[in-house]
């Protein structure tokens, strides 16, 4: 450890692993350390099952749960948008070759106490019970407009200035009712609250396009999920970093981030060893004095021995409960994966309910979501603080990621990573630096 590095990365969560990979690829000498003896930090998938039970202080699982090693249970629920930033990063870095994915089967939205499939094509839109007859036609016109909208081609704007006019105005232009606005904004544009209504419509147009482009890639839903759980993602990027010379140390406690003149980082101390470095990249848990709590997220892991009722026995699915439906300020998400993703023993399902905490009783807040799941064999509730850095790193050269937010996909994760990379290196990440012989795959 007693060497000098360009950058020391602390924590092996997904964000830190992507950064580590990008830094190594860019020719930096990287030391990557985690205090835990496993990869992934907050974004790990827990295996075997006993470990999950003991993590939450529950007695060990009985034999009905099958082989413990067949389980890989995520601590945070997220899916990948098939046409989103993370998929682009995976493909451009070649990390995709270490992973396999499955499409999530469908997406549902909650309305008036029951769930309906989010319509993915015109046929489904026409059959959907989410809208009345005339509303369906208006919704279709709206979708066609968004699809044809080209930012470079004013003719496609149809006399609507999406850069300056609000989303509320665009909805009104098409005469969409509150209910349609609700599922468009929350189940297609994936907003967690209604602030977007008063901002420029262009952002929402882009989000709906991301949704439909993602959907167009693999069909049933815009979401992908990695086999063996989300914990594979940080491992894949860690491997990229290692291949480009990054040094890995797990199970290594960090006692101090050593500062020099002007509060600038000069190294990292573990026991009596000090590794020198020019920069540190880390998650909030390594620098509690440099982050502040912006909110709380409640997550409930539910183990089920059956699919979710009313989802046509889907082996994977997402259910969104728009905030207004429960008189809340933020949406509740349910994500479901199963044994077909090698994250549970044969016949088992893992459902995760999550949302931003709004009251003193987070468990009560997610009650309506839990009620949709049918009988729950075991549930584990956790409430985590959501931290954001108070230091942008430009002086201290300590670059801190934000905690994982309550969003249902990795788009904000990637934005945070790309922003940190730019702050840290002063440049955008150059994908052309990845050598093609990295794979040396024939074909």
């Amino acid at each position, binding site marked *: 450890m007693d060497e000098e590095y360009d950058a020391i990365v602390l924590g092996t969560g997904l964000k830190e692993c992507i950064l580590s990979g990008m830094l190594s690829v860019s020719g930096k000498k990287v030391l990557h350390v985690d205090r835990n003896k496993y990869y992934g930090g907050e974004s790990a998938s827990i295996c075997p099952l006993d470990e999950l039970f003991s993590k939450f202080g529950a007695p060990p699982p009985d034999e009905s749960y099958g082989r413990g090693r067949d389980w890989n249970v995520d601590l945070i629920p997220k899916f990948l948008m098939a046409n989103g930033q993370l998929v682009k990063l995976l493909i451009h870095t070649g990390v995709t070759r270490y992973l*396999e994915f499955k499409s999530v089967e469908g997406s549902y939205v909650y309305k008036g106490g029951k769930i309906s499939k989010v319509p993915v094509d015109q046929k489904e839109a026409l059959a959907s019970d989410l809208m009345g007859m005339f509303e369906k036609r208006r919704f279709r016109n709206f979708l066609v407009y968004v699809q044809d909208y080209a930012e470079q081609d004013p003719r496609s704007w149809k006399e609507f200035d999406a850069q300056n006019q609000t989303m509320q105005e665009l909805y009104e232009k098409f005469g969409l009712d509150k209910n349609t606005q609700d599922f468009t904004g929350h189940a297609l544009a994936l907003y967690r609250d209604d602030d977007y209504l008063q901002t420029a419509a262009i952002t929402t147009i882009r989000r709906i396009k991301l949704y439909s482009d993602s959907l*167009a890639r693999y069909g049933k839903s815009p979401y992908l999920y990695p086999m063996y759980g989300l914990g594979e993602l940080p491992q894949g990027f860690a491997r990229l970093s290692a291949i480009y010379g990054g040094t890995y140390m797990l199970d290594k406690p960090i006692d101090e981030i050593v500062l020099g003149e002007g509060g600038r980082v000069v190294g990292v101390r573990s026991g009596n060893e000090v590794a020198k470095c020019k920069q540190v990249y880390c998650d909030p848990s390594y620098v509690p004095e440099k982050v502040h709590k912006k909110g709380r997220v409640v997550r409930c892991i539910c183990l089920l021995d059956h699919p979710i009722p009313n989802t046509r026995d889907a082996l994977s699915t997402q259910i969104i409960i728009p905030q207004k439906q429960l008189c809340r300020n933020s949406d509740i998400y349910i994500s479901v994966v199963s044994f077909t993703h*090698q994250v549970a023993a044969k016949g088992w399902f893992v459902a995760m309910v999550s949302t931003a905490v709004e009251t003193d009783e987070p468990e009560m807040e997610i009650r309506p979501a839990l009620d949709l799941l049918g009988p729950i064999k075991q549930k584990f509730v956790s409430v985590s603080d959501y931290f954001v850095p108070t230091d942008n790193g430009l002086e201290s050269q300590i670059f801190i990621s934000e905690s994982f937010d309550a969003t249902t996909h990795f788009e904000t994760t990637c934005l945070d990573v790309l922003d940190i990379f730019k702050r840290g290196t002063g440049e955008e990440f150059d994908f052309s630096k990845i050598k093609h012989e990295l794979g040396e795959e024939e074909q």
Partner: protein
Amino acid sequence: MANRTSAAQRPNGSTQGKICQFKLVLLGESAVGKSSLVLRFVKGQFHEYQESTIGAAFLTQTVCLDDTTVKFEIWDTAGQERYHSLAPMYYRGAQAAIVVYDITNQDTFARAKTWVKELQRQASPNIVIALAGNKQDLANKRMVEYEEAQAHAEENGLLFMETSAKTAMNVNDIFLAIAKKLPKNEQTTGPGGSGQGRRLVEGDSGAKAAGNCCK
């Protein structure tokens, strides 16, 4: 990753036999010659001062057996073994492993034994494991007896050969021996084998773009 079986297009043009693809992982202490063995096998090269593994930790090579072509997808540790920080992903779905030690260094043999245990614990139960005593060209400095390693291999059901990446001794042979021992029918993918998902590639559109949303 999967044990994919399909009709093979032979180099001579005749279509017969099948291609089976297997994930093979290398394990062993730093500097025992893991990368050198792979480079010798895949490219026929040897470098006296091979750098620590950088930039090429994923190679493929095929071996032909009678009517079957066995394609190895070879994963090198990329140095993550150095501080015992190898990711579980590395073992995941591996159908074969070569555990390498240096015959001139007793510690590397002790470490090889723990890697074998680790594989038996972490990897899929029907993984084919080979033990390779590398640097056989330095037999005059030998610290690990051939018989000792062979006995360990027999006890644990491992293939065993002493190899030399430098002289190429037994390098092709050990991969060939593994290829012969691997199951070649479709039903044999163990529980730790293929996850049966898809790999993502650029421009992948799943041929489903037509008729979808909003068109």
